[in-house]
C-alpha cells in the first residue's frame, strides 16, 4: 500500500483530517545518524585538543571553560535553527555543541567535587535543557543519553545503587507505551526514547562488568539501602516489566483473564524473577517488548542483542553457583516452553506468521 492509498482510506474512515501534507522529506536512516554521531564525537575530540593546545588558559580556569562551553552551545542552537536541513551546518553545529558540553562539564567539575552528587545533577540539568531547546534529532539523542547517565552517576553517589536502571526503564515505558508521545509528539519524544535506551544499556553493561568503575561506582557509605539497593532495583525493574506486559495486553484489547494476557504476564513474571539473579535480563526484555509494541525494529534488535549479552554474562555472575543457575534456567526454560505450547494450542492458525511491521 502506498501513502496516497493509505491517506484515502484513513480519510474515508475519518481518522485523518485536512489536506495530506506535501513535500515529505524522508529522515536519514538510523545507521546514517549513528555514523554522524560517531564522526561527530571524533571531530569534537580533535576540536577539544585544538582548544586545549591553542588556548590552554581556558582549560585551566573553570569560569572561562564554562563560559566558552555555554557560548558554543548557544552558537550550536543558533546554527541548528538557522540552517535546519543543511547537513554541513548541522554536523558542524553538533560538533560545536559537543565541544561546548565537555567545556561546561570541565567548568562545573572544577567547582564541585567528584564525590558530590550535585556535580552530576548539575550536568544532567544542563544536558536536559539542551535536549529540550535544541531542535535536532541526533543532538537530542546524545543529550538525553548524557543527562540519563549523569543521573545514574548521581544516584550511585547518593548510595542508592541499582536504582538508576528501574528509573530509566520507567522513563522508557512512559515514552514508548503511548503513541500520543512517540508518534504525535515524536519530534521531541522519539529521540528522548532512543537516548534513554542508550543510557539504560550503558548503565546495565558497565554495572555488570566492573562494579568499581564509572557507572557502577560505589560510595563509601554503608547501610541497608546501600547493601540491598541492587536487589531492590532488579525487583523494581521486574515489576515494571510485568506492568508493561499487562498494560500492553490491555491496550491491545485482550481481557485481563484472556489466554494471551495471562501468558504475557506469566512470561514477564518468570523473566522478572530470573532477572533477580541475572541482572539486565528484565531491562533487555522490556526494550524488546516496547520495540514490538511500537513497531520499532531498531528497538527490537537492541533488545535481542542485549538479551543474548546479558544471558552470556549470567554464566560469569557471582550471584549464585553454576548449579543453582542451572536449576533456575531449567525451570525458566520449561515454564516458557509450556507458555509456548499453551499459546500454540490457542492459535487459530498453525502456519508461521511473520509480523507485518513497517
Amino acid at each position, binding site marked *: 500500500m*502506498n501513502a496516497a492509498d*493509505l491517506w484515502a482510506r*484513513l480519510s474515508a*474512515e475519518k*481518522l*485523518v483530517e*485536512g489536506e495530506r*501534507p506535501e513535500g*515529505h522529506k*524522508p*529522515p*536519514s*536512516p*538510523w*545507521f*546514517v545518524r549513528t*555514523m*554522524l554521531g*560517531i*564522526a561527530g564525537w571524533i*571531530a569534537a575530540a*580533535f576540536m577539544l585538543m*585544538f582548544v586545549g*593546545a*591553542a588556548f590552554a588558559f581556558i582549560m585551566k580556569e573553570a569560569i572561562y571553560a564554562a563560559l566558552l562551553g555555554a557560548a558554543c552551545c548557544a552558537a550550536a542552537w543558533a546554527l541548528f535553527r538557522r540552517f535546519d536541513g543543511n547537513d*554541513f551546518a548541522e*554536523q558542524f553545529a553538533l*560538533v560545536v555543541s559537543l565541544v561546548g558540553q565537555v567545556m561546561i562539564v570541565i567548568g562545573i567539575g572544577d567547582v564541585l567535587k567528584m564525590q558530590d552528587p550535585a556535580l552530576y545533577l548539575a550536568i544532567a540539568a544542563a544536558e536536559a535543557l539542551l535536549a529540550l531547546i535544541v531542535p535536532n534529532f541526533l543532538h537530542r539523542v546524545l543529550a538525553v543519553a548524557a543527562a540519563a547517565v549523569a543521573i545514574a552517576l548521581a544516584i550511585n553517589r547518593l548510595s542508592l545503587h541499582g536504582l538508576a536502571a528501574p528509573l530509566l526503564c520507567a522513563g522508557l515505558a512512559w515514552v514508548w507505551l503511548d*503513541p*500520543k508521545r512517540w*508518534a*504525535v509528539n*515524536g519530534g521531541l519524544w522519539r529521540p528522548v526514547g532512543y537516548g534513554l535506551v542508550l543510557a539504560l544499556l550503558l548503565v546495565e553493561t558497565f554495572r555488570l562488568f566492573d562494579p568499581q568503575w564509572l557507572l557502577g561506582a560505589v560510595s563509601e557509605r554503608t547501610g541497608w539501602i546501600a547493601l540491598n539497593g541492587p536487589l531492590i532495583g532488579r525487583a523494581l525493574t521486574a515489576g515494571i516489566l510485568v506492568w508493561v506486559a499487562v498494560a500492553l495486553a490491555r491496550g*491491545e484489547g485482550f481481557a485481563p483473564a484472556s489466554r*494471551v494476557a495471562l*501468558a504475557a504476564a506469566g*512470561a514477564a513474571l518468570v*523473566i522478572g524473577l530470573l532477572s533477580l539473579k541475572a541482572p539486565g535480563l528484565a531491562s533487555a526484555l522490556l526494550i524488546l517488548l516496547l520495540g514490538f*509494541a511500537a*513497531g520499532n525494529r531498531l528497538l527490537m534488535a537492541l533488545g535481542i542483542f542485549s538479551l543474548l549479552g546479558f*544471558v552470556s554474562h549470567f554464566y560469569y555472575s557471582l550471584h549464585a553457583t553454576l*548449579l543453582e543457575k*542451572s536449576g533456575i*534456567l*531449567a525451570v*525458566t*526454560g520449561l515454564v*516458557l*516452553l509450556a*507458555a*509456548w505450547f499453551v*499459546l500454540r494450542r*490457542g492459535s487459530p492458525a498453525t502456519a*508461521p*506468521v*511473520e*509480523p*507485518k*511491521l*513497517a
Partner: protein
Amino acid sequence: MSGLRGEVLDWFEAKRVVPNGEREVLRSAGMMPAPADWRTFLGQLSLWLGTLALASAIIFFFAFNWDDLPRMAKFGLVEAAIVAALLASWWVDLDSMPGKAVLVLLSLLAGALLALTGQIYQTGADTYELFGWWAVLILPWVLVSRFSPLWLVWLALLNLTAYFYFSIGWQTQPIFWALFALNSLALVAWEAGHRFGLAWLRDSWPPRLIAIGTGVFATALGVWAIIDSHSRLAFPDALAYLAWLGAFYTWYRHIRTDLFMLAGGLLSLIVTVTIFLGDNLLDSVDESAGFLLIGLVVIGMSAGGAIWLKSVGRELAE
C-alpha cells in the same frame, strides 16, 4: 525507517490524525502489531527464550563439574538430552520455528558434550580445537536448518577457532588477517547465495552483521599499515584495506545497493583518514592547527557522506 513509516509520522507531526485515532492509524499503516501479530510474537519469544534457557541450563550444569555425579551419569545425561532433541527433530517439521529451535538446541548440546569430554578426560587439547570440532560436528544440522541465525552461530564458532589458533603466537596481525579473511569469505558466500535466489537468505541483517566483522578487521589492517608504516607487512595491509574498500563500494553501490554497508564503509574511511592525517600532520605542522584541520576534515567527510547517502537513498526510493 521505511518511506511509508516516515510519511505517516509526518502526518502525526502535522496534526492531521484525529485525537484518539492514533492506534487505528498506526495499525492501518502496519506500524503497530495486530492481535494476531502479538500471538505469533509471544509464541516465538517463549519458544526461543525457553530453548536458550534449557540449553544454557545443561551447559551450566556440566560447567559446575559436580564431583558427586559419576562420569558415566554425566555423559548419560547430555547424551540423553541429545537423543531427546533428535527424536523431537523427527516429530517436528524442520522448516517450522520449533524445528529450527530443536536444531539450535542440538548444536548447543554438541558443544556441551565436547566440553564435558575435555573436562573428564583432560585431553590437553587447545581451546581452538574445542571450537573447531564443535563447528565440524554441527555442520550437518546447520546445513539442513536453512536458518540464518544458526549459520551465524557456526560462523561465530569459526571466528573463535581462528582467534584462539592465531592467539597462540601472541601476535596481533595474524589474528586481524585471519578474521578479516574468514568474515570476508563468509560475506562473499552469503552474497552469492543471495544472488542465486535462496529464499532463506533474503533478510538484510545477517550479511550486515558479517560486514561489521569484515569492516572492523579491514579497518584494523588499514590503521595498522599507517601506524606501523615501516613494517614489511604495511604494504600488504594497506593493499588489503584498499581492495576491501573498493570491492565493498563497487558491490554495495553498483550491484546490490545497501545504504547500511555504504555508511559503514564511509565510517571506516573517516577513521583511517583521521589516523593518516594525525600520523602525518601533527609532527610536521603546528599542533593546534593540525587538530583544527583534522576536526574540520572529519566534519566535512561525515556531512558530505550523509548528503551522498541521502542521494543514493532517494535513487533507491524512485
